[in-house]
């Protein structure tokens, strides 16, 4: 078998690419900088959108057009609270993502990646469902006082369209979870194969 391996090694050496790289080192550095900028923009953009939403809700429903009933005020607090919770989780998720070291050995990198995906599964699953339920609860807390200010048909329309929107959102969440479950399965399998010598045959 060693002779055969030597042949393969020689074949491998002969296969070494001789052509110059398609991009210069400087071009790679520029791409790296651009990628880093867009990654930061994407990650913190999400937080910015959530924060702006919380701020708009606070300004409109607490400062400009405040709710007067205890139920209405509770609804606003729950709504803003659930958004703040989502923002905190998002920040935590980014920190966890930055914890993945691409220059760690494969086993360590795989564990870190698995840890991150497990966390994402948790926040995109249980936590997001809970937030949707709490947010819905808050929405219906606001509805009685809100309905006094608008025609009845508007209240009926909102009351009907909200569950439809929530159903679409839940469907999307379920799709996302399924995708991430596939990733978790693949990474777990890789992690197991690295730790065990009995994984084949």
């Amino acid at each position, binding site marked *: *078998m060693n002779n*055969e*391996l030597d042949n*393969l*090694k020689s*074949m*491998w050496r*002969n*296969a*070494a*690419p*001789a052509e110059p*790289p*398609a*991009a210069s*080192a400087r071009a*790679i*550095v520029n*791409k*790296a900088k651009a*990628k*880093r900028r867009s990654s930061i923009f994407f990650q913190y953009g999400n937080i910015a959108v959530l924060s702006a939403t919380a701020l708009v809700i606070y300004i409109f429903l607490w400062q400009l057009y405040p709710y007067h009933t205890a139920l209405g005020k509770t609804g606003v607090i729950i709504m803003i609270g659930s958004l703040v919770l989502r923002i905190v989780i998002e920040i935590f998720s980014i920190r966890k993502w930055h914890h993945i*070291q*691409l*220059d*760690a*050995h*494969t*086993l*360590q*990198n*795989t564990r870190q*990646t698995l840890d991150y995906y497990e966390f994402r599964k948790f926040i995109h699953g249980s936590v997001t469902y809970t937030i949707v339920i709490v947010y819905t609860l808050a929405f219906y807390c606001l509805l009685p006082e809100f309905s006094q200010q608008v025609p009845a048909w508007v209240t009926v329309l909102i009351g009907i369209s909200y569950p439809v929107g929530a159903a679409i959102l839940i469907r999307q969440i379920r799709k996302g979870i399924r995708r991430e479950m*596939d*990733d978790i399965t*693949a*990474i777990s*399998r*890789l992690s197991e*194969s*690295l*730790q*065990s*010598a009995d994984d*084949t*045959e």
Partner: protein
Amino acid sequence: MSKDQKEIFETIYRNYHAMVLQVCTGFLKGDTIQAQDVMQEIFINTWNALPNYRGDSSYKTWLYRITVNTCLQHLRKKKLPVNTEIAALPELPSESNTGKPYNQLYQAIGQLEEMDRLIIIMVLDEMEYSEICKITGISEGNLRVKIHRIKTKLKKIMHHE
């Protein structure tokens, strides 16, 4: 990023781009176009990781770690099918067709499981077992067993057994 680090990066890129490209080509079953893309991704990651380089391993070993992790990440991103068992070797390009006998080697390596592919590539690249252990995190005993099994699988594939 200091001027020194730019110089270090340029040196790494100049010295190792061919090695990285070959690893990517072997990992991606001889697909040189995709391999070029993954190589770029690897050097982008290398640039971003450079401030964390502590010097506890050679640049080659360090770069190999980034290469292996990025290749595995690439498979997940692209959702490419992962081999779980030895499949019959499909329509290998013959030497006369391609003029490149090593295409058969790339195709054969491509029949292995993802991590096995990377391990055998390191073996073919004449890396010491201790270095492969540092890159993969596998113990030396475990690695020896794995390499033996991978060689047997590769032999089976190469000989259409």
